[in-house]
């Protein structure tokens, strides 16, 4: 399978960052790790956008992943990071597989809003579940890896490493899917579903497949977020969280599999600057950035990167 240049660069970059991680200030490391988690969710959204669909409820699977991790470690005392990751991915994937039967029938705004409804129902359920701390949620702690119990600082590095690995694997996997004939089919379905059907393709099962893939990715994202921030709560499935993911997707653009992660990172930086720099008007700052991107870079930051690459070659 051929990797295009940008992907190779991205992978190289990830390795480089990981190698440098001991020297990166903790707070930046934290932002990058969270960006990785968000990026995984947005990678799924990006696949949806290739299909011409936007989900305003993807946080549902992000949250499902996080709570799988949280509840396994809280109730069943499972503490192994890798085990928790896998479990979260599987549970989120299963959930997506089931909901997919329904949602694959929906298009345009209705797809987005029905997924919103489901995520808000989960929100309601979690808020009502007082044993899980309702809106307070609960903390995830005492993680181990392969039987080892790293101290907090090592744990940061370990989680960072795991994140990097999961991100790289997802990048390669999604890249493979997009490079396969299915990749072009996604755009075809967006452009003209009826024609694609008449050529013998099933839009419904294609969408269902993508829905599951996005679900699993979001599950991983949720698990990482839960382990890194050490706390989970129903907010993770609130509509504003889904909104953030869509924001990042727009920010990054759908031009490349790397775009969601660039977007997530920039978003992390924008957000933390906005919080600190204008504590009273950070919402406005974020809003202005969003409009700016939509107006100036309709194809997301990625298009900017792409342009620069062209120029640097010339």
């Amino acid at each position, binding site marked *: 399978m051929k990797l295009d240049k940008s992907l190779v660069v991205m992978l190289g970059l990830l390795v480089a960052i990981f190698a440098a991680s001991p020297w990166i200030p903790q707070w930046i490391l934290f932002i990058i790790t969270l960006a990785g988690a968000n990026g995984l969710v947005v990678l799924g959204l990006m696949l949806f956008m290739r299909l011409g669909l936007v989900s305003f409820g993807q946080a549902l699977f992000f949250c499902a992943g996080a709570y799988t991790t949280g509840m396994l470690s809280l109730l069943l005392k499972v503490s192994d990071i890798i085990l928790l990751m896998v479990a979260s991915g599987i549970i989120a994937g299963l959930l997506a597989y089931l909901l997919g039967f329904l949602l694959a029938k*929906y298009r345009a705004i*209705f797809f987005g809003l029905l997924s919103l409804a489901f995520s808000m129902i989960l929100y*309601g359920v979690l808020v009502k579940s007082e044993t899980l701390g309702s809106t307070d949620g609960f903390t995830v702690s005492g993680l181990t890896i392969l039987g080892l119990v790293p101290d907090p600082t090592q744990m940061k590095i370990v989680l960072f490493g795991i994140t990097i690995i999961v991100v790289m694997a997802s990048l390669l996997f999604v890249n493979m899917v997009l490079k396969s004939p299915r990749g072009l089919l996604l755009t075809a379905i967006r452009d003209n579903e009826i024609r694609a059907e008449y050529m013998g393709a099933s839009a419904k099962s294609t969408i269902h497949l993508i829905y599951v893939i996005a679900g699993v990715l979001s599950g991983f994202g949720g698990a990482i977020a839960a382990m890194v921030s050490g706390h989970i709560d129903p907010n993770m499935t609130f509509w504003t969280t889904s909104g953030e993911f869509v924001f990042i997707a727009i920010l990054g653009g759908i031009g490349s599999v790397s775009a969601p992660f660039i977007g997530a990172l920039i978003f992390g930086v924008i957000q933390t600057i906005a919080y600190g720099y204008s504590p009273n008007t950070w919402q406005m700052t974020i809003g*202005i950035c969003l409009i700016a991107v*939509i107006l100036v870079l309709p194809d997301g930051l990625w298009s900017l990167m792409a342009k620069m690459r062209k120029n640097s070659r010339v």
Partner: protein
Amino acid sequence: MSNLLIVLIDGINYAAWLFISAVGLTLIYGVMRVLNVAHASFYAFGCYVAVTLAGFWFSHNYPPHLSFFALFGASFVAGFIVGWILERFLLRYQYAKDEVVILLITYAVFLILDDVLKLIWGVDPYYASDPYELLGNFSVGEMIYPNYYLLMVGAALILGLGLTYMLKMTRSGKLLVSVIHDREISSAMGINVGRFFSLTFSFGCALAAIAGGITTPTISVVPGLGVDVIVLSFAVVVTGGLGSLPGTALAAIIMGVVRSFCVHYVPQLELFVIFSVMALVLVFRPRGLFSLAEARKI
């Protein structure tokens, strides 16, 4: 056991509020295919305008009963103006973009306006409950209700019927409907679609603001009070079938009454009721209760 009449009254009252809050959203979507998240900010804006004016009005002891017109009128006009500005200088140039992208633009506008309101009015709550108490009460059995609830139901009816009349009976209304059905043809027929759009958008925002104005006397106006409203309005509008007035009305009534039943008989479920109704309806009627017709594909 609550008696059904009470349950119904509460339900209808909530339905009226839902409808008032959502009608602007559905109008804008129906005509422009724009799902306007900034609706929330205009609702909040309406509240702040109304509450400010009310304070002024009653401190100067102007005729109290005129306060209603003043309040609602003021929020309506304010909403209309800001809406017009927004359409004229930002949205007008975006219609070519995808439905979802426009939605995100309005989301950004919502984020910005929310902070603008905070910069203007600060974070302190304001209230103006005089109009609410002004009208006295009526009682059902020994249950006391403020007549203001009747006013809200009345307002909902007036808005609903008024808009229906405008769309069905008046000339510009009919033109609007033709725009709804086919932009290209209408503009080809020399209808100034652009003007209809900015009018509709401003009017929709004005409706959001007036909703805030009508709600103000019953609440305390605090930062971020629009957020909750927009999510509810979404649920109502989508359940009703995006862009359908009767749909919105029916959805509001269903949700209002179902919610009231929950509150009276199973309070635990109140939290899910709205979105469960929405999901349920969408499962069986994917495009909502009353969906707009779709054109033949091939």
